[in-house]
């Protein structure tokens, strides 16, 4: 990882030229150390790692030239900076509150589309069903959705600020709760940052256990998306089948470690313990699960009444996916695959056979589901390799001491939603700041753009096919 400091306009020029040359814009955030200037930091994903580019603002500066007009992917990032620090990105197209609720005056219904009979349906934050809180403002003449707006600030929890002052051992517990359905991936990204600062190497057995949990988490998440999609289509039996498989995966995880979300397993320096179940039993159970899931998935992918609802629904063009640097299955379905497990391998992924990148380009809800099924299959394969290798390594220690005093690093991991990045800075063994960036945050903004030609009844399919968690957005 490289870190370079410069001024804002030089930073933007460098950033846009690197993105133009094929690197991926992976985030922008601001930090202020007590009494110091506001520092803008950008993450750029390259073939081998995540680079951090920095530019401090002049002391007392109330604004800076916005990046968004030059790089659209920065749209939400600059709004977040504005929310947190009040500094204005000059030339930003729309500075409405994003992650912090702001004052009630900011909550007036915005209107982007004018025309006869156009009205806005405010949908949320308390929605039908068991859902996370988010408000969709759907501007519609009745059926088509010419414009969608999102308010994610309702469930802002102050996670980023909460990290300050924690030890890394406590910090990983908070990382697990930043986006609860991707606990393992967040814990991994956090620990990778801490381990990079410490310069410590995770024992081989721990590296494999990490893969086990990360892939089980991916399978559970993709099954959850399948449940939501078939539920939206009213396929009751299919919904029950995939819910059953998901429950079995969560139960397997809980028997490995005591938590259904793999919490408490990943710690800086390794894992807290090797799984309670012997690897042979993990293999056997994962094998059975794989058979059951594969058979039901195959049946689903021939159920034409279901496929009709997904085909051509919520399409994201390859060009937009590339421009935005779309993460995870959303990007892969549109022909833009940048899987951290492949491009920037970590832990057990360094030694295991890498899953091939799927070659989809349609970018619609159906392609996203196809990508998920392929990923599930790859996950079972990785699970099997990891469990097979584990007995040879089990005499190993589960962890090494990892208590770095100070430093800064970025860590990453491939969550089911896409790449998660943690930028951690430690002073005297405590976190002075920690910036989590979930794939949900980066990808959700793309929902603005995928309703071309779709109507209100397509909404649940499109939302489910993105497979994101609001918790990870409104940190």
């Amino acid at each position, binding site marked *: 990882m490289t870190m370079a400091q410069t001024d804002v306009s030089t930073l933007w020029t460098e950033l846009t030229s690197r993105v133009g040359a094929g690197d991926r814009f992976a985030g922008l955030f601001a930090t202020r150390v007590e009494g110091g200037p506001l520092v803008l930091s950008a993450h750029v994903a390259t073939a081998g790692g995540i680079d951090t580019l920095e530019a401090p603002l002049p002391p007392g500066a109330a604004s800076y030239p916005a990046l968004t007009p030059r790089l659209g992917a920065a749209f939400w990032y600059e709004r977040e900076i504005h929310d947190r620090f009040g500094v204005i990105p000059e030339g930003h197209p729309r500075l409405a509150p994003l992650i912090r609720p702001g004052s009630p005056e900011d909550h007036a219904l915005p209107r982007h589309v004018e025309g006869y009979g156009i009205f806005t349906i405010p949908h949320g934050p308390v929605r039908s069903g068991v859902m996370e*809180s988010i408000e969709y403002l759907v501007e519609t003449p009745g059926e088509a959705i010419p414009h969608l707006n999102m308010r994610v600030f309702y469930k802002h*929890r102050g996670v980023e600020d909460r990290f300050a002052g924690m030890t890394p051992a406590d910090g990983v517990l908070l990382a697990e709760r930043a986006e609860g359905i991707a606990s393992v991936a967040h814990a991994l990204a956090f620990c990778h940052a801490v381990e990079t600062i410490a310069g410590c190497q995770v024992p081989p057995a721990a590296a494999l256990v990490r893969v086990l949990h990360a892939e089980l988490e991916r399978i559970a998440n993709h099954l959850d998306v399948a449940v939501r999609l078939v539920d939206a289509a009213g396929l009751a039996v299919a919904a029950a089948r995939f819910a059953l498989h998901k429950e079995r995966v969560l139960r397997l995880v809980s028997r490995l470690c005591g938590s259904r979300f793999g919490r408490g397993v990943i710690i800086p320096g390794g894992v807290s313990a090797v799984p309670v179940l012997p690897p042979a039993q993990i293999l056997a159970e994962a094998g059975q699960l794989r058979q059951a899931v594969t058979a039901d998935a195959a049946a689903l992918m021939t159920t034409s009444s279901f496929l009709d609802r997904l085909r051509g629904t919520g399409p994201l063009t390859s060009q937009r996916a590339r421009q935005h640097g779309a993460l995870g299955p959303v990007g892969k379905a549109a022909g833009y695959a940048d899987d951290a497990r492949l491009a920037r391998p970590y832990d057990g992924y360094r030694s295991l056979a890498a899953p091939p990148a799927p070659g989809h380009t349609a970018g619609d809800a159906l392609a996203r589901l196809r990508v998920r099924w392929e990923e599930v299959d790859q996950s079972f394969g990785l699970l099997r390799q990891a469990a097979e290798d584990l007995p040879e390594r089990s005499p190993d220690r589960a962890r090494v001491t990892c208590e770095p005093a100070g430093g800064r690093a970025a860590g990453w991991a491939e969550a089911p939603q896409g790449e998660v990045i943690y930028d951690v800075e430690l002073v005297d063994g405590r976190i002075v700041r920690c910036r989590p960036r979930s794939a949900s945050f980066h990808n959700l903004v793309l929902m603005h753009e995928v309703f071309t030609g779709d109507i209100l009844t397509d909404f649940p399919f499109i939302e489910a096919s993105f497979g994101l968690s609001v918790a990870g957005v409104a940190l």
Partner: protein
Amino acid sequence: VSIWVLRGLRDGVVTSRWPARPDPYADGWRGPVRGSAPGGPAGVIPSCPTGAISVTGGAVRVDQGRCILCGRCVAERPDLFAWSRGATGPAAAVLAREALLVPEVPETDQGVGAARVRLRERTAALRRSVHVRHVDAGSDGSEEWEIQALLGPVYDIHRLGVFFTASPRHADVLLVTGAGARGMAAPLRTTYDGMPDPKVVIAAGADAVSGGLLGVSEAVTGGIAATVPVDVWLPGSPPSPFGILNALLIAVGKLAAGGGPASQRAAASPGPRSDAGATGEGDASKAARRRAGETERAGETQ
């Protein structure tokens, strides 16, 4: 479509029989940590990331409402701390916040007793079928997964007459997750106010009970009790689906609530449960409840 009919028959009945029968997965569940009985702590008390551990009067207590089940204290001092076992039972969800201090403080019984009477009066009006409205007030997303699991084939709450409803107007129970995000305070309050009386509020998960690891901050109120009055407190990070089911049945009086006499709390470990509450209620008491409910409703309309 016919392929799905056959696929649906594939695994036979996968639905749990709980609470009519014990369920091994519920009984084996690793719940929040318990402190030690009085005896005087020796040595260093482990640091708890949420400050759930307190030492008073020679007893090491764990506030299960703060416990996020990281297990650090159990690993460091197994002589003082132990996991509680079982996701269900009268002690797995309680009627007063102070009853989550384990081992309990002497004043707990009184508070719980009063809370039980209050809840009983209200739930008497709830019929055999109850409707639940869920609100996310700043959860990490995992609680929603565990609640959704109840709608799946394994837990299948519909068999117990419990249904989720979209409208607060139809809801008897408000099931709230999350640390109490300030942005959700108004929508949560609006939902609560929109529900008809009698209504019961469940705080589901350590975050909803105490704010969990987030505590109280500019962004969260440290639990949902700052916004709505809580009747049933359910610890866990996140609580298991059986734990949520247990709390729902306690909330509507179908299962006995815990936190009463110490002997009852000690019986929190796996074992035979009060199945009678769910299934074997006498007709006379049912009729009495129904009358009570009608009186209350009539009173409202006047």
